[in-house]
């Protein structure tokens, strides 16, 4: 088990093993996405009140769920980098940030598109929307801080500290905005309503959530591989790969 842990610190090993994982995971992800989205967008029954507009849930909810999970992936990778000084954790943290930010943006965008026909407005300062917006800012802050440092080792550590501070902030924001909102207006808007979702809508939703998790993993791994090549541009293993002309 420990040899596995040590191997994680080796860029060539991580590069080749992630290549093997991607060769299997990427097709599975694409198939799951295709099936889940076609099922959700074309073959489920229309909602009783919202008609067809609710179908965006099959993109919106998975993106939001995985965006939140992505922050924790990033923060945990940062913590591992701080505690055990693992370079690969730093690579994972750096690579997770843009993917998470993109998913958060997709969640916000689809939320706005969904909000227009349902609530009659693009944007509401609702608890969840505001907390997602803050999540986007946290992601962008991490990316901006990383880019600002010339010394990339220091950048990784500084971003890890920022991620951990932000992680404390997420539950506080979530709760506080709930309080703040309920003070002004009754909570008239809810994402899914009181009634639990019907199973005919639930199954495709679960499938798309799983597919988005797999998509996040694929994007993370591909980002990490690019980063590994970039960092190792002057090392012999990258040179060997480049001369062999192999991609895995």
């Amino acid at each position, binding site marked *: 088990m420990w040899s596995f842990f040590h191997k994680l610190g080796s860029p060539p090993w991580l590069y080749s093993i992630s290549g093997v994982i991607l060769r299997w995971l990427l097709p599975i992800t694409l198939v799951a996405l295709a099936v889940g989205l076609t099922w959700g967008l074309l073959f489920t029954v229309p909602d009783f009140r919202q008609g067809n507009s609710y179908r965006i849930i099959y993109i919106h909810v998975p993106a939001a769920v995985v965006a939140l999970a992505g922050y924790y992936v990033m923060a945990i990778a940062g913590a591992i980098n701080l505690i055990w000084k693992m370079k690969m954790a730093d690579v994972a943290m750096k690579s997770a940030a843009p993917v998470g930010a993109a998913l958060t943006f997709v969640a916000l965008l689809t939320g706005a598109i969904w909000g227009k026909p349902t609530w009659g407005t693009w944007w509401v300062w609702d608890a969840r929307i505001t907390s997602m917006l803050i999540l986007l800012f946290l992601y962008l802050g991490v990316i901006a801080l990383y880019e*600002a440092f010339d010394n990339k080792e220091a950048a990784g550590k500084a971003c890890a500290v920022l991620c951990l501070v932000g992680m404390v902030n997420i539950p506080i924001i979530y709760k506080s*905005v709930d309080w703040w909102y309920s003070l002004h207006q009754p909570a008239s808007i809810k994402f899914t309503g009181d009634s639990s979702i019907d199973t005919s809508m639930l199954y495709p939703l679960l499938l798309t959530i799983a597919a988005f998790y797999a998509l996040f993993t694929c994007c993370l791994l591909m980002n990490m591989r690019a980063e590994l090549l970039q960092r190792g541009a002057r090392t012999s293993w990258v040179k060997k790969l480049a001369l062999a002309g192999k991609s895995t």
Partner: protein
Amino acid sequence: MSPPGSLQFCVRLLRRQLVLAVRRPIEIGNPLLFFAMVVALFPLGLGPAPDQLAGFAPGILWIIALLSNLLTSDAVFRSDFEDGSLEQLLLAPQPLFISVLAYIGAHWLITGLLLALVSPVFALMLNLPGSAVGTLVLSLLLGSGVLSLVGCIGAALTVGLKRGGMLISLLVLPLYMPVLIFGSAAVKAAVTGAAAGPYLAILGAMLCLAIALSPLAIAAGLRISIDA
């Protein structure tokens, strides 16, 4: 001569920071001037109707306090970083956790405390009901402590960077939002006659959490910045 104990060391550092600040009074006056000027912008931008201003006053005052805190926190470690005394602080036998508290304390005394004490004047200018002024001062006293603690995390992380000014606001503003929410909610509650106590209690809880945790992050940030 034996080195001073960590508490004594902290008190000496605090005194040093305060003496440095008092010798350059303009540095103390700048945040207050900023506060006054931005207060003057709102009646110009929103219109001078007293009722309307009174409704916005809790939020306006809190946002300005937050911004002046943000603008001053950038400089907390900068001069000591540039002249090398920060490096000496890292090498000192006293724990960094304790010594950064002196920096934060000095920053809070110079900006947070002063702003809280002069805020009633601006509250009256914005037509905030007199009954809410006490809550405003109390919420600013508690909240600005959290703002200083969190702002110093951003300052510690960006102190080594040449273009830290804009970056620190990107890093710190999302972390300021919960404080803003509860701070302005406390004042709004006082305006409407509802109980402000729960909001103040939550601000106090945030302050406790921030005192316990943020010096850790600041110390880590300073070590990273010095190493870089």
